[in-house]
């Protein structure tokens, strides 16, 4: 237990400290000690003093106190901590005006844009290099990535697609039954799944699963200086790491989308059965309304979504800063940017398909 006792003499205040000075005993003394000001501290009865005790002495010394009779080991400790020297104060950063802030933000965006363009340029160059000498393409890596991000993603895509088909069929069948139009649920579900929902849902899943994985993997490699190691080995990280991922994801996305369409339609068929629509009738309706062009349009969209997800995921990973938190930041940015890009490009597809009457 530590004690603090203050005696006032004509020459000034004398503070007597006694007992053990550690975090537990210093805490209740702190407020009192911080208001003492100039005084003399009799530390002859201090029996123990650790880092918290040193902090208390620092506070007293900086307030103008003079320490006397502290046992030699603790005096050495005060010297080691340089308790008589004020702590380093970081310079306060100068305030910047809104115009400067705007200029800085613009410059940062310009730099980011330049990085993105450089990245696309390097990827194009790597693609060109691979086309000229296909042996430079890491085929095994493409298959491994396709397996991890395509085949392994199939169960979750199948589950969501089946539920989506069932929910869509069920929610539309109830109001349409009031008009005796349950039959047209097949048209609605078929067209919306093939043209829009299956590619979009698959892309959002892929962004959360594959895009995040790419960003985290590449960001970790950057933090661990593995990218530097690749560069000094004479291997271009874009060709070695990014290209196989981009190719694998662009190829797997349409396949996943096709699976999502089929499974979604099966889910809807099960619901239609409960509304007394025979399977044969349902298949006939779907095949009469959904044309090959619709299916091809959906698959094309899915491929572009896959391309975007891989490009953005890898880009965010390569752009990561240093430290563990940079990996988390890169992953978050990859998922958010991918979803925004998917939604924007989906809107553009809708507009272009309308113009083309596709």
């Amino acid at each position, binding site marked *: 237990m530590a004690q603090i006792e203050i005696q006032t003499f004509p020459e000034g205040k004398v503070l007597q400290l006694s007992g053990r000075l*550690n*975090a*537990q005993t*210093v*805490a*209740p003394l*702190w*407020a009192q000690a*911080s208001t003492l000001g100039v005084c003399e501290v009799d530390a002859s009865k201090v029996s123990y003093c*650790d*880092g*918290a005790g*040193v*902090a208390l002495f*620092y*506070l007293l010394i900086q307030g103008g106190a003079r320490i006397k009779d502290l046992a030699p*080991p*603790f005096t*050495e*400790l005060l010297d*080691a*901590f*340089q*308790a008589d020297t004020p*702590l*380093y104060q*970081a310079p306060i950063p100068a305030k910047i005006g809104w115009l400067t802030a705007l200029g800085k933000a613009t410059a940062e965006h310009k730099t980011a844009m330049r990085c993105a363009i450089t990245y696309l340029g390097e990827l194009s160059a790597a693609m060109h290099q691979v086309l000229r000498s296909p042996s430079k393409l890491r085929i095994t890596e493409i298959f491994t990535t396709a397996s991890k991000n395509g085949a392994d993603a199939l169960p979750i895509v199948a589950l969501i697609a089946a539920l989506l088909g069932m929910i869509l069929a069920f929610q539309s069948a109830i109001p349409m039954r009031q008009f005796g139009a349950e039959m047209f649920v097949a048209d609605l579900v078929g067209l919306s799944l093939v043209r829009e929902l299956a590619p979009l849902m698959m892309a959002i899943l892929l962004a959360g699963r594959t895009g995040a994985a790419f960003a985290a993997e590449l960001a970790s490699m950057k933090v661990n200086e593995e990218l530097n190691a690749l560069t000094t080995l004479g291997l271009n990280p874009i060709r070695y790491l990014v290209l196989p991922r981009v190719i694998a994801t662009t190829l797997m996305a349409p396949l996943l989308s096709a699976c999502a369409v089929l499974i979604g339609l099966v889910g809807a068929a099960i619901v239609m059965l409960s509304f007394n629509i025979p399977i044969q009738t349902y298949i006939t309706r779907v095949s009469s309304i959904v044309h090959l062009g619709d299916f091809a349009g959906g698959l094309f969209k899915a491929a572009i979504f896959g391309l975007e997800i891989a490009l953005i995921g890898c880009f965010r990973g390569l752009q990561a*800063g*240093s*430290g*563990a*938190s*940079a990996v*988390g930041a890169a992953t978050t940015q990859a998922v958010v940017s991918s979803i925004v890009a998917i939604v924007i490009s989906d809107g553009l597809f809708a507009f272009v398909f309308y113009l083309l009457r596709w």
Partner: protein
Amino acid sequence: MQHAIIKVKQLQCGYGDHVILRDVSFEVNKGEIITILGGSGCGKSTLLKHMIGLLPAQQGTVLIGDEDIISAQGEVRQRILARIGVMYQSGALFGSLTVLENVMLPLAEYTPLNAAAREIVARLKLRLVGLDAYADFLPSALSGGMQKRAAIARALALDPQVLFLDEPSAGLDPITAAELDALILQLAHSLHTTFIVVTHELASIFTIADRAIMLDKQAQGVIAIGAPKTLAADPNPRVSDFFTRHAY
């Protein structure tokens, strides 16, 4: 009579069924500085991780004070952990916190100090390792050696009775390494802090260690314990060659 603060009794360490070290027994007295030595892969870091309760022992006990960290659970384990500080080989600073926040974290969790007091304690610890000007930096902005020093400051935050340091001098320049040795001696002298240091640095071993524990991969255990100068003159060449840097 000296009081043993750590008692390792017939400890068998390993991963799964694979045994790395067997029948390890030694005691460490309060205020003593012990270095753990041995060639690469002999189990130095494995022994350290068992001594701080990070890995489950295959057999044996590690008493810190009078409590076995191997079998301790819940509050008992928390109590033991509050008495020890650990500096990991890579620093293991929390990347999302500044250096100052890293050092303040254990103070906020385990002490009743207010925020102002915690900050002064933490800044003083950083000054002790020469990093007071880098308190507001993120660990990623520091060099490897600075991260190690910041990790030592964090390990020191609670003024633990026992401090485990895993290769503290590796990657440091000779002057900083010598300053670190002086700091270890200072803390052992002033606060009677006990140090368990895994190191390969011969200069450090001869400067700081009261005793050294030599591990050997072939023997799967301790082959010598004693003062560094005694071990350097040991008749067993596997022990003395470590000190003379004799290559096979």
